[in-house]
């Protein structure tokens, strides 16, 4: 294997690993010790030494090309012992560079100059062949595993995002989550109580995109949840398992709140009201006060309705 090819392996290992197929068979390699020193803007950073496993058969790609189409080798010269090259990178992080590697007894020696918008950086490289047999595919395997784990975590995060009604994760061209199953879950939940509550906890400027994500009207989805809660509450009235529906109506459904309030609160005395509607009706009374209305705006009976008329007439004249 030539020095240039070994260097290419060292420099390109991460990008190659990222593109490797899921099953990576073992590949005979030999261990190298590599030392890199960097200098930038007059400062030298401490030398970094690491070991790597380089394939015995070498690599076919020239250095600097790899899978990164933003960087191109513009010049390359190889006389068998020394290789020199120039490269240019386009895109956000523009860069140009020149490098040279010379084979030495049992290793290599070289340098590379990189010019970026932030200044010039000099990288000195030394390599020593240790020769210990190793599996050069190990790093690729690790990278494949890391990538697979990352994808798994992303899938989990997107399912959680759908559960939490995180519209931001699904909206716009830069959406983090693109799995149709997660989007379907998000849209399905938008018409449930949990979903409406989750949306209600977020700013409107975030949730307004839900309609576009789901291809449905946001208000219609909420109405669906509210109507279902209204039907459930009306059917169960004051049974234990209707509490949640009633609480949801009070929090999120103005139209259904009106219906329940007219049916259960209006004209009722505080003392005669069933316990299960007390909190709901108290909140409703507060809303009426907010609007400048009296809390029992539609009294069907006065608060002391349990008293008979005669007793009431007498009592109204007296302090208690």
């Amino acid at each position, binding site marked *: 294997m030539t020095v240039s090819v070994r260097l290419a392996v060292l420099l390109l290992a991460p990008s190659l690993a990222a593109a490797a197929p899921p099953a990576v068979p073992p590949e005979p390699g030999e261990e190298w010790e590599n030392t890199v020193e960097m200098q930038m803007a007059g400062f030298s950073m401490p030398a970094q030494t690491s070991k790597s496993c380089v394939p015995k058969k070498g690599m076919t790609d020239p250095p600097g090309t790899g899978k990164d189409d933003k960087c191109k080798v513009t010049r390359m010269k190889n006389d068998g012992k020394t290789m020199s090259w120039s490269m240019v990178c386009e895109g956000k992080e523009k860069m140009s560079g020149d490098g040279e590697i010379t084979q030495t007894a049992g290793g290599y020696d070289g340098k590379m100059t990189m010019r970026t918008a932030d200044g010039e950086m000099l990288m000195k490289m030394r390599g020593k062949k240790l020769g210990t047999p190793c599996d050069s595919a190990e790093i690729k395997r690790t990278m494949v595993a890391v990538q697979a784990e990352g994808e798994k975590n992303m899938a989990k995060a997107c399912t959680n995002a759908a559960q939490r009604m995180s519209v931001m994760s699904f909206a716009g061209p830069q959406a983090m989550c693109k799995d149709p199953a997660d989007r379907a879950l998000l849209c399905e939940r938008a018409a449930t109580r949990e979903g409406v509550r989750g949306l209600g906890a977020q700013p409107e400027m975030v949730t307004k995109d839900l309609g576009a994500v789901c291809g449905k009207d946001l208000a219609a989805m909420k109405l669906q949840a509210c109507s279902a809660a209204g039907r459930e509450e009306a059917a169960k009235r004051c049974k234990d398992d209707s509490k949640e529906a009633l609480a949801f109506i009070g929090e999120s459904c103005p139209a259904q709140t009106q219906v329940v309030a007219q049916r259960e609160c209006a004209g009722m*005395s*505080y003392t005669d009201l069933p316990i299960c509607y007390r909190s709901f*009706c*108290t909140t409703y*009374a*507060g809303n009426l*006060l907010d609007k400048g209305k009296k*809390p029992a705006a539609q009294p069907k009976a006065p608060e002391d309705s349990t008293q008979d008329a005669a007793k009431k007439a007498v009592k109204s004249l007296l302090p*208690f």
Partner: protein
Amino acid sequence: MPVLVVTAVAALLAAAEPTDRFPSAAPSYLVAVDGNLVWAGAPDLPRAPASLAKILTALVALESPTIGDWLTVSRRAAAATGSRIGLRSGESLRVKDAVEAMLVASGNDACLAVAESLSGTGSAFAARMNRRAAEMGLTGTRFVDPCGHDAPGQHATARDLWKLARVALENPEFRRMVALSSVQLETRSGRVLGATTSNALLGRLPGADGVKTGFTPEAGKCIVVHAVRGGRDVMLVLLGAPDRWWTAAALVERAFAETAPRE
């Protein structure tokens, strides 16, 4: 951190002037959270206090050294009108028991019996009440009838009643009595009398632990409410509320909700 937030909220509340957020609640009302006024409408308007006067009657009695004594019910006290616990002329009971009956069931017979036992007459006791009111700086308040019957020249303000209730609640016996949902007392002759609280919020509104209700034709429906939740307290005074229970419950809920510390 939560302590810091609570402190900050309290400081903000203290600094802010109370707003008349709920003008339909009552002609005169106020809501205070942790000792700071948050909402109020005409809090200094003089109004008939009705049985809220019994807050001061009870406080003066509880501060008296003769609170443990027996009193004898006069014919006048036994004939008191309005809410009563059914005392009979000539029978004896402990002053403290009568105070309890006056606070829990708003018994006017018990109230007048206490006033007469401590000062000889209702009007003499009212003078004593006014001296105590002056000590507390209740400048908008004057009592004529110790039990709160409408009377010319008798008036109180929501602000004064709030101050009064705060002082009264510092008295452990007063605090215990106003939290009772019913009262049972025994006369010296062994007759047992019972009555339930006039405060419909007790046992219904979470955290409500007193104070007093009142009604007369002139005063309308009145109430002073105290409620505690999670170490925070709300005090509400409504004078002449068209619907005091709903209004009181709603305002107490609102006060806790809107001033809840956020992390």
